[in-house]
């Protein structure tokens, strides 16, 4: 906690002015939103790998409005009885979407050929209050989900209230305690099945690293650490432990942001190694390659895709 030293130490450290400043506790920065606590770690460690072919075409009609068409062909996993075998069914679908992105209002909608629709709305009601809604609707009854969030942003804290279907109510709060450390907590109550939970989280960040941890009464404990080795390379590691079922997973990953491409890879203690490559072939044309090897379950997934626009 170097920032708590009194200013008497300043004379020796001229070239690192950040260490000298006396902490102004009435003027702390606003913390990241509670759900983005592990943002840097999950960007490296949970890239969205896919299997099969993926083709996305985004056409912008306007600065704010765009339509997108995407085609996905490949096997999709079906839940099986035993956790060791994996059942896959080849499927192909086309998805149409529309985006309207404004500084104050964001609307994103996607609809698939089998009738499934996803909708996301984000609106800034005032400077500090924001409403977000996220819904996944399906034609079958009882298969739809929706969640509404109300976010309030204070000067050095954020508070959020959530309502979802199945009578889910949740609230979370995060506060900056020093310019680098922020602490937060959340509570939630679900109607079906009746359970409630409480959790705590902490995040410590500097220019070169981010460390965060989260504990919840559902039995989850997660800790992760990201080191920004240079502005092109960052390394991350993550540890997740469930203290009711006594299962632990650790993973190590990297994220290379090069001029024309971005490579992300990770390896897991469950024997899963995965990587995702995004290469910019020319302006607006991106080529994607993804691989996920699960040695324990003997499930190997490879995918390739093209993104236009």
């Amino acid at each position, binding site marked *: 906690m170097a920032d708590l030293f009194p200013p008497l130490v300043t004379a020796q450290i001229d070239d690192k002015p950040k260490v000298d400043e006396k902490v102004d506790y009435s003027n702390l920065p606003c913390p990241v939103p509670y759900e983005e606590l592990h943002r840097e770690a999950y960007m490296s460690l949970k890239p969205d790998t896919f299997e099969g072919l993926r083709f996305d075409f985004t056409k912008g*009609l*306007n*600065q*704010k*409005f*765009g*339509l997108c068409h995407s085609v996905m062909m490949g096997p999709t996993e079906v839940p099986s009885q035993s956790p060791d075998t994996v059942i896959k069914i080849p499927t192909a679908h086309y998805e*149409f*979407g*529309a*985006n*309207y992105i*404004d500084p104050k209002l964001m*609307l*994103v*909608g996607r*609809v698939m050929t089998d009738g499934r*629709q996803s*909708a996301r709305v984000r609106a800034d009601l005032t400077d500090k209050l924001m409403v977000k809604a996220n*819904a996944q*609707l399906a034609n079958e009854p009882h298969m*739809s989900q929706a969640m509404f969030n109300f976010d309030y942003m204070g000067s050095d804290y954020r508070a959020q209230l959530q309502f979802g279907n199945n009578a889910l109510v949740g609230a979370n709060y995060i506060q900056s305690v020093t310019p680098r450390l922020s602490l937060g907590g959340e509570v939630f109550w679900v109607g079906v099945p009746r359970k409630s939970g409480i959790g705590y989280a902490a995040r410590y960040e500097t220019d070169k690293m981010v460390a965060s941890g989260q504990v919840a009464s559902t039995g989850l404990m997660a800790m992760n650490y990201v080191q920004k080795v240079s502005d092109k390379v960052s390394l991350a590691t993550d540890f997740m432990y469930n203290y009711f079922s006594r299962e632990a997973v650790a993973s190590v990953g990297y994220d290379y942001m090069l001029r024309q491409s971005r490579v992300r890879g990770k390896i897991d203690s469950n024997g899963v190694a995965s990587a995702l490559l995004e290469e910019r072939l020319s302006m607006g044309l991106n080529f994607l390659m993804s691989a996920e090897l699960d040695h324990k379950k003997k499930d190997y997934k490879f995918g390739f895709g093209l993104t236009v626009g």
Partner: protein
Amino acid sequence: MDSLKGKGKGSKGASSSSKLDLVKEWTNWSLKKAKVATHYGFIPLIIVIGMNSDPKPHLFQLLSPV
């Protein structure tokens, strides 16, 4: 204590349970209608809002694949 509680419920039973049932039914009905409206109307809503923002795009740009 239990018998008092039982009597209280018995006398007000009919009106309070039917009011609660009415409220539940009404919220279920409105949620179902809201779900159908969102399912069919959300993407047309985005398209209408987008076509009316400026600079106004043409209908031709909406339908052509280029």
